[in-house]
């Protein structure tokens, strides 16, 4: 009976998703091609129910189960919420796009849902084995999803590259795991933390930790494991690219924070190294994005640099930094989903993806262009959007860490100019450049796609105005992380 209680209080969303997966897989075989659209609704329903069920979870308590290999705390619940809402919008994106999948529509949703499940488990995982399995679930399914357009050369190539790169980096991560295990003798994170509080850390431990983090850096496309991202984003089906840059990333960050937390009461070495990684991630992403002409590639580089900003928060190795990172992650997710939704709509209807194809679209589809621009400007950090507040809060947290982190602040600040340039390039194409006279007019009538797009855009602005609750959420989750990592008694709010 205890087991069932656990499920209700800690794993309800996962269970619901699993159930949906089962239903979908059965339906995949049962339904005829033309009726496979039905699976779309089923999966949508499953995700929505799962999202609702998150509210039923006990948010103010830390719950651990499955022999302590899964723990549900406020932070993990928040991450799961983000992952599920990301999935929701990714599924929405496929509404019109799915005609490209031909007769395999059902499978696509199946894969997406399984990948999501991997992500959900990852955000609550508390044991190295659990982490590994959840991560690989997410990764393997992502490989498959990237190559989902079997006949498409680009899609194949993307999947291949993704797989090779992913295989290598997960091997590096596992190598790190093995050392963590070897040093501490434990695979359970709680116990590893307990070990750390009793033993002062050493260089070997930091080395192992860094190797481990490599695997997660791959997941979040952080430097130096970022190079797959642009190719995969370009080649993969657009909703998959969206999935990778949102859901997959959130999951990656969710687990990354736990590992970085291991270094919380450690030396600063890992913090500085991570800071370096974060800055390099931002800088490389920004520099590469400057000359892009393909909007998907541009978004890939943009998401690399955005990941770098989140990493900065992590690199601060503190409660404040984590809260900044979490808030930034929320803002990134909302704006990025919006931007990908726009690209999906555009790509689905015109089959084009160059920035110049967007020229003058603002005067054919003003709402579309405006919403897209708002999302992009939020990513760039222009008010009044959530991105602005998030950047401000992140920088605020850096400064709160004291003058030692000034270098981090300065380079991060300078990078925002670079990012502004390429986001503006897209905005400029839409609003300023003269489009071809017979430029395509998108169908942006009221529908689920346009509604969710507008919804996300409004959310971007609303979150930019109603800031306090989300900062409180971010802070609270950071407190939870902080407590868990310092293995101090949990203070329940």
């Amino acid at each position, binding site marked *: 009976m205890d087991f069932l209680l656990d499920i209700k209080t800690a794993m309800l969303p996962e269970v619901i998703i699993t159930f949906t997966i089962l239903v979908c897989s059965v339906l995949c075989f049962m339904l005829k091609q033309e009726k496979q659209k039905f699976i779309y609704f089923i999966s949508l329903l499953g995700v929505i129910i799962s999202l609702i069920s998150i509210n039923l979870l006990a948010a103010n308590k830390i719950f651990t189960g499955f022999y302590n290999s899964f723990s549900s705390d406020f932070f993990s619940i928040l991450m799961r919420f983000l992952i599920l809402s990301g999935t929701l919008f990714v599924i929405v994106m496929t509404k019109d796009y799915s005609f490209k999948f031909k007769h395999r529509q059902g499978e696509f949703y199946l894969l997406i849902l399984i990948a999501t499940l991997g992500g959900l488990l990852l955000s609550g995982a508390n044991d190295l084995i659990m982490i590994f399995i959840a991560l690989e679930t997410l990764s393997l399914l992502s490989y498959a999803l990237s190559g989902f357009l079997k006949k498409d050369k680009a899609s194949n190539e993307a999947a291949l590259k993704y797989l090779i790169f992913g295989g290598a980096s997960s091997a590096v991560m596992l190598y790190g795991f093995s050392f963590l295990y070897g040093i501490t003798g434990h695979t359970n994170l709680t116990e590893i933390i307990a070990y750390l509080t009793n033993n002062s850390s050493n260089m070997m431990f930091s080395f192992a930790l860094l190797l481990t983090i490599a695997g997660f850096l791959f997941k979040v496309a952080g430097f130096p494991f970022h190079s797959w991202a642009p190719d995969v984003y370009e080649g993969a089906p657009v909703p998959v690219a969206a999935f990778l840059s949102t859901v997959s990333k959130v999951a990656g960050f969710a687990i990354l924070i736990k590992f970085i937390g291991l270094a919380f009461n450690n030396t600063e070495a890992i913090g500085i190294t991570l800071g370096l990684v974060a800055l390099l991630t931002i800088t490389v992403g920004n520099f590469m994005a400057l000359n892009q002409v393909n909007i998907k590639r541009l978004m890939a580089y943009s998401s690399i640099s955005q990941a770098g900003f989140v990493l900065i928060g992590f690199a601060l190795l503190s409660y404040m930094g984590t809260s900044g990172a979490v808030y930034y992650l929320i803002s990134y997710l909302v704006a990025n989903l919006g931007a990908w939704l726009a690209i999906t709509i555009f790509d689905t209807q015109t089959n084009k993806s160059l920035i110049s194809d967007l020229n003058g679209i603002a005067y054919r589809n003003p709402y579309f262009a405006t919403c897209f621009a708002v999302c992009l400007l939020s990513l760039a950090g222009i008010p*009044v959007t959530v991105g602005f507040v998030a950047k401000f*809060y992140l920088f605020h947290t850096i*400064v709160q860490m004291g*003058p030692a982190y000034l270098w981090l*602040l300065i380079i991060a600040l300078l990078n925002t*100019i670079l990012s502004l*340039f390429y986001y503006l390039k897209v905005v400029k194409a839409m609003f300023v450049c003269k489009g071809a006279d017979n430029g395509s007019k998108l169908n942006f009538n009221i529908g689920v796609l346009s509604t969710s797009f507008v919804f996300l855009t409004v959310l971007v602005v609303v979150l930019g105005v109603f800031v306090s609750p989300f900062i409180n959420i971010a802070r609270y989750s950071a407190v939870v992380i902080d407590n868990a990592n310092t293995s101090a008694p949990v203070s329940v709010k």
Partner: protein
Amino acid sequence: MEFLSLNILIFAPLIVAGIILSPLFPNDEIIVRRFAKGFAGLLFIYSILFMIFFKPHEVGYQFKENIKLFSDANWIEPLGISLSFGVDGISIILVVLTTFLVMLALIASKKAITTKHKLYYSLILVLTTAILGMVTSRDLFLFFLFWELELIPMYFLISIWGTGKKEYSAMKFFLYTFFGSLFMLAGILALNYFHVINTGVSTFSIETLTYSRHYDIPFMFEALIFFGFFIAFAVKLPIVPLHTWLPNAHVDAPTPVSMLLAGILLKMGGYGLIRFNTQMLPEMIKIFAPILIVLGVINIIYAAFVALVQKDLKLLVAYSSISHMGFVLLGLGALNVAGISGAMFQMIAHGLISAGLFLVVGVIYLRTKTRTFSQLGGLGQVMPKAFYFTMLLALASLGLPLLIGFAAEVMIFYGAFTSDSLEGFVLSNQVMTGLAAISIIITAAYLLWMLQKVFMGNMFEKWQKTSDLTPHEAIALTFLSIPIVLFGLYPEGITSLFLPFVDNLVSHFTL
């Protein structure tokens, strides 16, 4: 005065912009323009009411507003950020200047803007909100927010309705200003940091950080904070050598936007220097005053010399703007009442004059499609009204007594000359002021040269049919001329608003 709410003043333009943009609003040029113009007029009258009910002798903000969300004490309670507005001596006058120039820019938009009217007028109104928010915000975060927000409409206004290399110019403007603002952001955060570590309370309130500074900042960091703010405002003002965005932006922007850019946006740099670098960091301004003065003199002389050989009418006016903004620096560096009042006055004066000059440039360009001096000449014969207005503006600009520019220059020269802020520096205040005064010759030279080249002398045959000012343009220029003459004759009308503020300001660092 219950009906005077800064919230309404600031956010009404935003709402009206939304109304104009909404699909329900008729897409008819005339209706859109008249609606926007009418609204701007009302806004101007409303802002005048603020000025009338403003009590100059009270120190600190008036008409305070603090919007609260979610029953929090402040807007973003966790960080101590408040959505609070208020006006004091230096902002009330800029508020009125803003609404005034926006109204005129909209009047001047009739012929200058020929496409995408709804978008244009709503962007101007968004810009209005941003500027009003900037000058009235009582919170550093809010100030920064509006500072950045202003860039967006400005970017679109230049890049969509501009001419020439408009996209390049708009991008340059955007990135350059953004670049500057990052330094300010660092400064803002650092101020907050030192307040937190000293008091444990996170706040961005300008009042708290200014008036009740119960916290110490290590000298080096205070200098860095000063530097951060300074860079941001130096870009905006602009200060040589951070000025090169300005000629580009001005030349390529449409006329009404140039008016707003020169008329108000540059003033934000001066406003910031007074509000933050001077008021908030009085210890630092004392130390850095020599730099301010040196940069000011360089600005004045350098830009004047560069203006002397410009071949493009608008470039000349743009460089004259840079030169004139140097006076703001010079006045500020004097650190006495006369100097700072003069800087403030110069901002108002230049706001009106440069807006007018850009309007005239636009008027000429609209008719001749050229701004090159070699193509112009003798236009005074066919457009006498434009000629007289330009003459008035040029004379005001070169500091002719009894026009608005003179009082500003006198105060600045007097302030700078009698100041001792350069004590211990190689060159004395007197020498620097003397150098700056050379500009009264050069300024006269390039402005009169401009008048001569454009309006006087022989006329090209092709301009024979050029028409004089339309009623719209004439009205806009007349509106501009009224304060130029009025406050030139009666400078107390403006100075009385901010003198108590400046007195109080100066008393803080003469102690």
